């Protein structure tokens, strides 16, 4: 057997590292801006491109796919080469992957502020970008499997299993959730409607957290933690067991995002049970990580890399304990739609993803540049200000969440709701100020890191191609003795491994979704629920464009505190024509399910122009441009046709007369406003929004009470 000489590609790792830092700073800056907008509406900057609804998804996408995404690729490209004892399969594929991913990020940064969005959380990007993501993801997989196939190491270490599971599951999630019917280059409708759309979306949303924010980072933990502490992982047995159970159980838990909604009860219960079971494998990973540090805590005191890892893994443990607790129905009843959820996800994002990424960056950059870190003191400063930042972020948000949850549910002795919705908004303003201070501290730490690492890079020279050597694998390998055990054999067979992973993750998805799709009785149709008129549909698309769903739910849960405040609770059958569903996941403003007919048209007019004039203390952004911009009706016909294709029962010839119908309805609203001395032409966008708002939830109301 011969020793082969080869070189590791460090340049691609460096590129991803720089992209991680750049997008991290951008994503956090946008996050800070949206945080400030929640107590200072003027920070919306008075134009549509920077209003909360449009840039909140920019923040989440930038952090998840740009910051964390690039960090994953940085860590995978570094560790995979070393674990396979091989250079990446193709330098070209590496380059296409890198630049393709950055282009996708730029496309997102341009389209989201323009209001080009599907409105589905963490999947907001429109269909052409969805296709680009698919292609680049395939390039990543091709490059990864190419490397695995030409490896000089017989068995795949546990980190690689996590990378494989990440690759296949993200591919499945992205494709299934992105089924949409294009209307134009920048507009599409979700293939699914209402309850089904919600189920698919949260199957995706939940598992995006699982397989984009969790499994790749567990893989990175299994490589970089032992490297940094220079001792092997605590238990290899535990890693095998928790890997398989984690990827299996995670997929089932999606419905816990939809408790007490119109989703069938059995699906909700399934989500709860599997969420609780998830504690076991999650903590298996955390324990394996923390115990790897056993007997080396003195190193943790001196080494910033290990400090970041220790806090990161602890944050993972806290978040994965809290998640299952939040999925208990009685806890969820209070926590859902509040800032508690925001606190929860930021413990994960700032603590687990952020701190693990920082630790890896501090470990990698000096290695790639063959030098020492520029300043250990600055790295320590980053650690402490970052930790303080997390605390200042999380504690006020928990407090704010409890406050909201409890105030929304409080009744007076006479049996009436004690607080108006706006009372809770005012009550938590100061907590939001503290939260943005926490975010600022965290951002300052990140900037210090960027400075520190830039100085480190300047003090060394990039080892673009690192020399290495290893024995070639025998081609006629015959396993003997214990090497013939089947799991061990599996670790030699990447393709079989991948297929098995797909089977394991497909189970939960199938069991959850099939029945909802197959059995009609799961969603009862309500005869009084009719499709939207052309004008209402256009108004709904504006509602999507402005990101209203980021702050307003359309889901009245069956609690007295909600039916008293908002009206009749929501039925699954009310959403059958909603492509996409707009249930929302957060109530920064009140629920709008039964908004129709609650206020006169004039109220909505003034409220959209200047919310605080109708609701003193309101923090909703102002939307003056809706009264100035003319509604685009060039696609109205296509939209109706598309809806018909998706199964919405419009009359056959409705698309032909849709524009006329739209104009007629708009004229009626404009005339109604004129009676209140409001001058607005009937072709303005605001008219369409009012038409949609006045329709919301009225199909049931009209049939029960109003008609009587």
């Amino acid at each position, binding site marked *: 057997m011969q020793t082969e000489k080869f070189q590791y590609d460090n340049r691609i790792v460096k590129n991803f590292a720089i992209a991680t830092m750049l997008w991290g700073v951008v994503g956090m800056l946008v996050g800070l801006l949206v945080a400030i907008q929640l107590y200072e509406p003027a920070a919306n900057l008075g134009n549509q491109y920077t209003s909360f609804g449009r840039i909140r998804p920019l923040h989440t996408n930038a952090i998840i796919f740009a910051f964390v995404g690039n960090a994953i690729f940085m860590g995978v490209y570094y*560790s995979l080469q*070393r*674990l396979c004892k091989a250079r990446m399969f193709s330098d070209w594929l590496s380059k296409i992957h890198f630049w393709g991913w950055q282009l996708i990020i730029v496309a997102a940064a341009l389209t989201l502020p323009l209001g080009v969005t599907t409105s589905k959380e963490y999947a907001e990007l429109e269909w052409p970008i969805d296709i680009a993501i698919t292609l680049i993801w395939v390039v990543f997989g091709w490059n990864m499997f190419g490397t695995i196939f030409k490896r000089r*190491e017989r*068995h795949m*270490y*546990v*980190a690689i299993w996590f990378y494989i599971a990440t690759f296949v599951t993200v591919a499945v999630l992205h494709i299934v959730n992105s*089924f949409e019917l294009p209307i134009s280059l920048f507009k599409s409708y979700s*293939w*699914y409607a209402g309850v*089904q759309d919600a189920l698919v979306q949260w199957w995706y949303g939940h598992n995006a957290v699982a397989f984009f924010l969790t499994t790749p980072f567990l893989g990175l933990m*299994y*490589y970089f933690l*032992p*490297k940094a502490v*220079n*001792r*092997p*992982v605590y238990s*290899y*047995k535990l890693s*095998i*067991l928790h890997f*398989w*159970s984690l990827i*299996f159980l995670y997929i089932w838990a999606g419905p816990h995002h939809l408790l007490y909604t119109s989703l069938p009860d059995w699906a909700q219960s399934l989500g709860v049970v599997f969420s609780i079971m998830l504690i076991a494998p999650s903590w298996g990973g955390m324990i394996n990580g923390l115990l790897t540090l056993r007997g080396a805590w003195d190193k943790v005191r001196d080494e910033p890399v290990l400090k970041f890892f220790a806090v990161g893994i602890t944050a993972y443990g806290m978040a994965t304990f809290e998640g299952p607790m939040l999925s208990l129905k009685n806890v969820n009843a209070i926590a859902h739609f509040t800032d508690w959820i925001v606190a929860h996800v930021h413990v994960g994002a700032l603590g687990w993803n952020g701190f693990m990424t920082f630790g890896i960056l501090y470990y990698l950059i000096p290695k790639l540049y063959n030098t020492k870190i520029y300043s250990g003191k600055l790295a320590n400063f980053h650690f402490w200000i970052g930790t303080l930042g997390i605390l200042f972020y999380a504690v006020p948000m928990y407090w704010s969440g409890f406050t909201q949850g409890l105030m929304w549910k409080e009744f007076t002795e006479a049996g009436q709701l004690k607080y108006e919705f706006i009372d809770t908004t005012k009550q938590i303003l100061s907590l939001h100020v503290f939260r943005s201070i926490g975010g600022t501290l965290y951002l300052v730490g990140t900037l210090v890191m960027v400075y520190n690492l830039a100085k480190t890079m300047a003090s060394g020279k990039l080892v673009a191609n690192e020399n290495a050597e290893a024995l070639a694998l025998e081609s006629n390998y015959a396993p003997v*003795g*214990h*090497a013939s*055990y*089947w*799991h*061990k054999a599996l*670790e030699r067979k990447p393709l079989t491994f991948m297929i*098995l992973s797909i*089977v*394991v993750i*497909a*189970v939960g998805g*199938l*069991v959850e979704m*099939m029945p909802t*799709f*197959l059995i*009609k009785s799961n969603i009862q149709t309500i005869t009084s629920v009719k499709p939207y008129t052309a004008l209402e549909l256009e108004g709904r698309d504006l509602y999507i464009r402005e990101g209203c769903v980021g702050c307003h739910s359309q889901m009245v849960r069956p609690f007295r505190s909600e039916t008293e405040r908002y009206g009749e609770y929501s039925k699954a059958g009310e959403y059958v024509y909603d492509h996409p569903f707009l249930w929302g996941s957060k109530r920064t403003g009140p629920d709008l399910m039964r908004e129709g007919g609650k206020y006169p048209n004039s109220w909505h007019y003034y409220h959209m122009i200047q919310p605080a004039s109708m609701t003193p203390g309101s923090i909703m952004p102002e939307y003056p441009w809706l009264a100035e911009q003319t509604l685009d009706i060039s696609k109205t016909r296509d939209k109706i046709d598309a809806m018909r*294709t*998706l*199964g919405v029962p419009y009359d056959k010839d409705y698309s032909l007369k849709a524009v006329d119908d739209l104009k007629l309805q708009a004229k009626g609203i404009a005339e109604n406003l004129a009676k209140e001395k409001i001058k607005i032409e009937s072709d303005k966008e605001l008219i369409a929004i009012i038409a949609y708002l006045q329709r919301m939830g009225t199909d049931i109301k009209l049939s029960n009470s109003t008609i009587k």
Partner: protein
Amino acid sequence: MFRNLLNEVSGITIYQIFSLVVFSLFFLLVTIWLFKANKGYLEEMRNKPLQ
């Protein structure tokens, strides 16, 4: 529409049951195998990143 598409696959419900059984068996096998697994091999794999 999507529903109709799936309905045309005959005996589709069997896939769910099949996949659940596959995983349960697989999980059981992994657990049993882990208890029997060779210590030397586990030790070797544990040390992979450090080599």
